[in-house]
């Protein structure tokens, strides 16, 4: 075992003096085993870092903002009104086609309203993305977006002027509300 092995992690962390660092660098140039260990230490450090990010993201996603129940109530009320309106005009089909209301915008695909991509682990191991989306996408459920002005839910001045929230409703083929998602 090389004596330098005890200094590899400190070298990785830039904690060695310049003389010690130069000695380690000279050694690893000619020592395959130390280079291999160094790579392993660096990889596990990076994985630990990514894991910490994932822990934070996972815990943050569990957290439900206090205004969500208020907004959810408004969205559900809007959904009920929408369904009552839509079902008077459309025969009960396998797929419910939404009628455009004044504040409703049909979404062409269920993926169009996905939030902006986040930095995720798999991007560090980038593999060319395989497009597995079906070319002929057949909707099995209907998505509806409803814009709700922030002023309608919060006291004046509490939110920046002109801010809207979007309530996204997924309508199941039987006409029921399958999912309500809120975003800014």
């Amino acid at each position, binding site marked *: 075992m090389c004596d330098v092995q005890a200094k590899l992690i*400190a070298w990785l*962390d830039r904690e060695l003096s310049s003389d010690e660092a130069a000695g380690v660098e000279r050694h690893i140039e000619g020592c395959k085993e130390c280079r291999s260990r160094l790579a392993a230490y660096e990889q596990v450090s990076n994985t630990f870092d990514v894991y910490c990010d994932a822990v934070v*993201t996972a815990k*943050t996603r569990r957290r439900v903002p206090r205004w969500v129940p208020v907004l959810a109530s408004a969205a559900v009320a809007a959904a009920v009104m929408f369904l009552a309106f839509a079902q008077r005009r459309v025969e009960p089909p396998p797929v419910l086609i939404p009628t455009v209301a004044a504040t409703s915008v049909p979404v062409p695909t269920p993926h169009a309203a996905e939030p902006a991509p*986040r930095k995720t682990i798999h991007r560090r191991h980038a593999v060319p993305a395989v497009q597995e989306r079906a070319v002929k996408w057949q909707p099995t459920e209907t998505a509806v977006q409803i814009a709700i002005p922030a002023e309608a839910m919060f006291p004046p001045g509490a939110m920046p002027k002109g801010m809207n929230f979007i309530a996204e409703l997924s309508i199941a083929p039987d006409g029921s509300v399958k999912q309500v998602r809120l975003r800014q």
Partner: protein
Amino acid sequence: MSDDSVPLALPLFRLAAGSSEVTTLYRELRKPLLRYLVCLGLTSDEAQDVVQDAFLSLQRHLASDGTQENIRGWLFRVAHNQARNRQTSYHRRFSEPLDGEMDFLADDATPEQRVLEKEKFRRLATAIRLLTESERECLLLRAGGLRYREIGEVLGIATSTVGDTVERAIKKLAEKCNV
């Protein structure tokens, strides 16, 4: 960590006039502090409370002509001590399984990649739980960008001890994770 992955709660405190340095520090260190605290075991809400309290303490510290050396280490130490005071959360660190929560990590990857990522994380999580408290804390502070000297100040241990602890912890993880 992307900007989107951290809750955008507004700070409850109001920075004093002329405290642009504190504002800059807040922008720079808020996320690393949140990450450290959440990984210690605090909930997202608790971590945000602790970060705000730490910056309030910093304002008082600076207003009373306290030392301005190594403010980053000072903030981490204050946050660390406040986290320790929340004993229940503090001892929850890394103990909660994240398997179900982490499906989103590979939502546009192939099934094989998802399996590999989850397996890699599962092994790492198991290995982390086997570390000592000191080893975990050293690695978390190291992941927060602190130098060994700063880590020693936060944890109240010698710099050389930090070096030994970090080395031991990384070697344990590398061995257990087989990387």
